[in-house]
């Protein structure tokens, strides 16, 4: 495989690994926020921001963490037939069907960008008591889909490498 594919794979994997490991710990931020929320309820001054903040963090948690789980290979496949194929045949299948995945992620990104631009232009806020601005979380969503698409190309390159009998 050409040199640029090697550096691409190395860079993207390293980036997504770091982002994913960071996202992994957001779980405890969610816990903290919700615990704080019960405490404030208990002392009878419930905070307004906790629930929405927890929702935002959950979105960031699973979307930023997603590329890392691609690396871990933990997204289920219907592998009744797939698991019986030889690695080369698996790679061949994947090299085609990964484009379906990339297309889906691309459409998601397209929708996300459109909505983020709208948020920036209008200063969109959540229609709740706390009224948080929505652009930060939407930017995070856009970023996550970019990372997922980058990671999907890593898998494509790997499959091509397997088909050529090489290792990436």
């Amino acid at each position, binding site marked *: 495989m050409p040199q640029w594919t090697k550096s691409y794979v190395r860079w993207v994997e390293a980036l997504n690994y770091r982002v994913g490991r960071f996202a992994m710990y957001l779980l405890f931020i969610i816990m903290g926020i*919700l615990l704080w929320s*019960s405490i404030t309820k208990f002392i009878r001054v419930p905070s307004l921001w906790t629930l929405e903040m927890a929702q935002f963090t*959950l979105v960031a948690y699973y979307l930023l963490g997603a590329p*890392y789980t691609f690396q871990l290979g933990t997204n289920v496949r219907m592998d009744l037939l797939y698991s019986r194929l030889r690695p080369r045949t698996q790679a061949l299948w994947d090299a085609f*069907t990964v484009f*379906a*995945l990339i297309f*889906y992620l691309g459409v*998601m990104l397209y929708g996300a960008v459109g909505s983020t631009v709208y948020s920036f232009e209008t200063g969109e806020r959540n229609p709740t008591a706390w009224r948080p601005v929505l652009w930060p979380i939407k930017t995070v969503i856009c970023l996550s889909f970019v990372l997922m698409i980058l990671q999907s190309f890593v898998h494509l390159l790997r499959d091509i490498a397997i088909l050529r009998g090489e290792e990436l």
Partner: protein
Amino acid sequence: MPYEWIATLMFSTMLLMMITGQRVFGAIGFVAVVAAISLWGTGGSDMGFSSIMKLMKWTPLLTLPMFVFMGYVMSESRLAEDLYKMFHVWFGPLPGGLAVGTILLMVMISVMNGLSVAGMAIGATIALPELARRGYDKQLISGVIQAGSSLGILIPPSVVMVLFSLIARAPVNQLWLAGIMPGLLMASMFMIYVVFRAWLNPALAPRMTAEERAEITWAERLLLLRAGLLPVLIFAAMMVPFIKGWASLTEASVIGAVTSVMAAVIKRRFSWKVFETATRSTLAITVMFMLIIMAAMSFGAVFDGLGAGRAIEDFFLRDLGLSAWQVLVLMQLSFLVMGMFLDDTAMLVIVAPIYVGLARQLGFDLVWYGILYTITCQIAYLTPPFGYNLFLMRAMAPSDYTLPVIYRSALPFVGIMLVTLIVVGLFPQIALWLPNMVLGL
């Protein structure tokens, strides 16, 4: 092209895409966005994105990572080991005693956790080696663990019911209470079946020898009962604040997660390795669930936009002219068939909205219908060729548990679940009397 054809086309393309072995969420999402764009042009491209925003507002989803985390803390720190020992000592003399103990362990896990994965992980790491060491039959072991862990979604707390309540707009607390009696009924039928099998053929489940029993003193037995306190404590820590209204559902699940960590720390079983594995696995499972739900919501939205719900309603009620009960039976049958192929979250988001609407129109009680739905999900976990527990079992058990063994092992338990489904279907009171009594409806 008529809409029914588009709907059928979407469904079959999705199944085809899944068979290729691409990630499930990718397969569902791809079909959804292609259909949306070809039907509604660029306007359809926002459909996928809006499902993220919709999901964000589904607050009860926050319980999902909490329950997953809690399950992993319990299985990784081997917190349930003492509990298992307790059941082992107390039920050892019974034919198939250890298998009965395993089912009871699963009931306890279900009381603490709202997913099936936790039970599978604990069953495979703690119960399986012990059962195998005692010479229990492989098929019996595999069946007991798979069936037992599926109780996690029927006995409260239950994440599947949380998701159902979002779609049906039925109160979660009623659903949870309604799951208790059917769950216990099912668990006792499992146990009766195991004892009966072991009594017919003792080779399947060698009993504890008399010498071994004599070695255990009564003081030891009583001491082991303390292990039973753990599930009671965790359950109380979660449920009391929730039912008293001090904490919301999501906050209660956080309290549960924190309590289980504290229990592990107190028992000196909490290490960096436990923490790292639990945190990483929680991310992996949560992402897997969320991405599937996200894709399935887009799919469901397109389906909805096609008026597939209307079409199915018309088909059942007008074209076939069926009575309410006949429709109900047909719905459950089709759910069972779909459950063989689809994953339960996908089923929930794609099909449930249509069926729930239909059940409401027919005048059925949605809480009761939620229980029927949950039992059907349990069956879906265990029915070949595609089932969560089947695959988890294959992934977690030693390699001599081959897929054919696992498939065969699930069948008798699927039969028992079907019986429970029919019994609860015929006698709605089994599910409904508890919530009615507690909440005074």
